[in-house]
């Protein structure tokens, strides 16, 4: 070969130094220029953690009031479910973030052209993805177990082991997801659409069977006032099996709570050793297949699709016919972008369907005279569910819109459309879409529940205030706190602006529902217990409407001002 090769670098050290420099510079910059931003971020994280802690404290106290043993089978089953759910969420979130950073980011393109080894690139990206996807897990997990520890009385080392359990548990689903992501991209058949369709049908069928069985178990346990729980608990056997990592977590945490140190350390070792092993396997897979997977992904030649206007675009245009032509064009442009990205609307459909299934199940329970459920309580839950769905959906899809326009804003800037019009266009797009979705969901589920017309009218009004207010908050704050450098919407959402927007949005919907709807539901629940009618339950409506108006005016005004001053 004849060419002298340079020595091989200790790439692990080189990448460690790179990460340290990036973190150090980012922190320094945050402290120098964006102290308010940094402290707001810490503050909102503490707020979320504090809120979770308070809810946890309340729920664990309820267990104490109902004489349910803290360290017994029911709490163990709840923890199994909690860890399994969090683990599943980690699998998906790490996989999605890792896929984007391994296969679509400019940094990986740069690194893949350098002598950096594939496994080192993978490890760097893996650490970032896991850190990104698991901060929520740690911020939510620690307060829940702190609350559990405080209410149930645990030894000191329960608290010391807690971070070790949570950090260790992050590794296993994260590594599994990383390995799966690499293998899927590398070996996925060319006809991906059919592949995912088949997988989707199988998963949907299995989930339907499982949900049916859970439903049967639930009905039986209600019918026997909770005496026969075996069928219901039996449906969660998989989560409780000795090979389920979520159950190792439960075993370890519960053993620590019971003051059984050796019983806690064994599952902890099991979690860490399996997590590390899975990580080594994922890194090995990366070494073998990452470069070819990248090649496969980049050149798999998705067949060219010709896009036309769709009848849905015309429906959208009709829904905003009250706007001027230019704003209508902008609304339809945003809608078209939205509908062409299935990841944007698939979650909305999923949540909506789950809610309707829940409501229709309740109808069946009512028909079976199961007094244990109350339609006013369920409809309030549905209202809260719809509002949270709106809050999450708008934060995910609407808040990043202005940031995503960032680099190509000059195109819009050169058109004869004012910047205020751009903002209003996005607001009307968000408000119209969310009103249609939320009103359909809440009115259908309330009708299924058989709620009286006063309830229906009240919910329609509350949902309208929430939808319009949240739309304005997301559009306004999106313009006020944009992140133009980021091209990945999921990262914009979890950034500073996104976090502030989410917290403000949650506060808004709690205030509106609390003031406008809760008194009505409390009255009806009290009536069941012998309370009388009271017209004062509607006294909060003007205040709720005023809060809604403020939520529209203030953020849109701030966003418009900020947008007018921006230079592109």
């Amino acid at each position, binding site marked *: *070969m*004849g*060419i002298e*090769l*340079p*020595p*091989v*670098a*200790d*790439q692990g050290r*080189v990448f460690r*130094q*790179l990460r340290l*420099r*990036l973190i150090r*510079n*980012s922190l320094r*910059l945050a402290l120098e220029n964006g102290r308010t931003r940094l402290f707001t971020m810490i503050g909102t994280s503490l707020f979320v953690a504090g809120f979770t802690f308070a809810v946890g404290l309340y729920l664990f106290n309820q267990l104490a009031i109902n004489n349910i043993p803290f360290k017994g089978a029911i709490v163990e089953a709840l923890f199994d479910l909690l860890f399994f759910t969090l683990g599943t969420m980690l699998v998906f979130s790490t996989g999605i973030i890792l896929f984007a950073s391994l296969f679509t980011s*400019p*940094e990986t*393109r*740069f690194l*893949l*052209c*350098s*002598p*950096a*080894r594939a496994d080192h690139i993978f490890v760097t990206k893996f650490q970032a993805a896991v850190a990104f996807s698991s901060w929520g897990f740690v911020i939510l997990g620690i307060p829940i177990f702190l609350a559990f520890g405080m209410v149930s009385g645990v030894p000191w080392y329960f608290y010391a082991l807690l971070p070790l359990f949570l950090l260790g548990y992050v590794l296993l689903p994260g590594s599994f997801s990383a390995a799966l992501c690499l293998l899927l991209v590398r070996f996925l058949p*060319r006809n991906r659409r059919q592949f995912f369709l088949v997988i989707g049908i199988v998963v949907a069928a299995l989930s339907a069977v499982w949900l049916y069985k859970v439903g049967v178990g639930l009905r039986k346990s209600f019918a026997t006032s909770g005496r026969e729980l075996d069928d219901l608990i039996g449906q969660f056997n998989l989560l409780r099996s000795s090979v389920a990592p979520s159950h190792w977590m439960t075993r370890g945490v519960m053993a620590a709570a019971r003051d059984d140190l050796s019983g806690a350390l064994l599952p902890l070792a099991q979690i860490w050793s399996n997590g590390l092993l899975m990580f080594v396997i994922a890194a090995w897979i990366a070494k073998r297949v990452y*470069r*070819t997977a*990248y*090649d496969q992904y*980049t*050149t*798999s*030649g*998705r*067949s060219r699709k010709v896009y036309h206007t769709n009848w849905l675009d015309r429906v959208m245009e009709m829904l905003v016919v009250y706007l001027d032509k230019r704003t209508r064009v902008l609304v339809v442009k945003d809608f078209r972008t939205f509908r062409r990205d299935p990841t944007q609307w698939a979650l909305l459909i999923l949540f909506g369907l789950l809610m309707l299934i829940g409501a229709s199940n309740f109808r069946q329970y009512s028909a079976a005279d199961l007094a244990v459920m109350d339609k006013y309580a369920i409809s309030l839950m549905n209202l809260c569910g719809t509002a949270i769905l709106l809050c999450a959906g708008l934060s995910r899809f609407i808040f990043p819109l202005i940031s995503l326009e960032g680099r190509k804003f000059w195109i819009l800037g050169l058109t004869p459309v004012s910047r205020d019009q751009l903002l209003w266009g996005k607001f009307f797009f968000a408000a119209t879409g969310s009103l249609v979705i939320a009103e359909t969901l809440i009115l259908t589920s309330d009708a299924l529940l058989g709620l009286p017309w006063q309830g229906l009218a009240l919910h329609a009004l509350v949902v309208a205030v929430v939808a319009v207010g949240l739309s304005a908050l997301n559009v306004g704050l999106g313009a006020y706190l944009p992140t133009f*450098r980021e091209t990945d919407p999921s990262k914009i959402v979890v950034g500073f602006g996104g976090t502030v927007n989410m917290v403000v949005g949650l506060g808004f919907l709690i205030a509106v529902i609390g003031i406008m709807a809760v008194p009505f539901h409390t009255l009806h629940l009290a009536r069941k217990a012998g309370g009388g009618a009271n017209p004062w339950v509607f006294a909060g409506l003007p205040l709720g409407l005023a809060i809604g108006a403020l939520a529209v005016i203030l953020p849109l005004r701030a966003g418009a001002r900020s947008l007018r001053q921006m230079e592109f």
Partner: protein
Amino acid sequence: MIDIRNVSKLYGPKPAVQDLSLQVSAGELFAFLGPNGAGKTTTIKLLCGLLFPTSGSVRVGGFDLRTHGDEARALISYVPDQPFLYEKLTGREFLQFTADLYAMPPEKSAEKIEEVTKLFHLDEFIDDLTERYSHGMRQRTVFAAALVHDPKLLIADEPTVGLDPKSIRELKTLLRKLADSGTTVFLSTHTLDIAQELADRIGIIDRGRLLGCGTMEDLRRQASMDGNLEELFLAITKEAAAEATV
């Protein structure tokens, strides 16, 4: 230095490069020309080991990019048309990272960083975070990083985009000097006068096929005309397009 043999690359069913064979020797400055979507960038990606050929083989310095990619990439520097820099690193830190990645000893890397900093006039902003750089500053920093480790093969995709006339002049001088000192330079460009002025040999690619390759004289013979590179380029690509439609 570069040995591309019978390489084809498919994007799904669509061929991006078809049966391409090309050899470039050490110390040669080779210019690769072609219309948009001709297969230039795909060829460069194959040379860097970012993509792998569907058939055929790509070797750099004798190392097959598929089986000995890490060794081959240790010899290569690639300057893409859209330069990548870590936004939260300073220019100096980025150069240091590049030097470390290529396992340069600390004293030598410090010396080379100083040298390329002067060469590309980075002094004024080298200690600023790169997120504040203009396109031209980024391009110069990326070039400096590409040369910090003395590569055996420099691949540059549209290297003059975003540079001012003075920087372009300096870059042209530098590229020629690099080739004269033994570094192979593989240049992909739309700027035909740069190719005509600098290149030892020129390759013209269209629809994934190498239509012509050689010195200006070779290309003139092939096109049976005595014009400048622009006229030759248009004649060769027009002829190929006419053949393709027949």
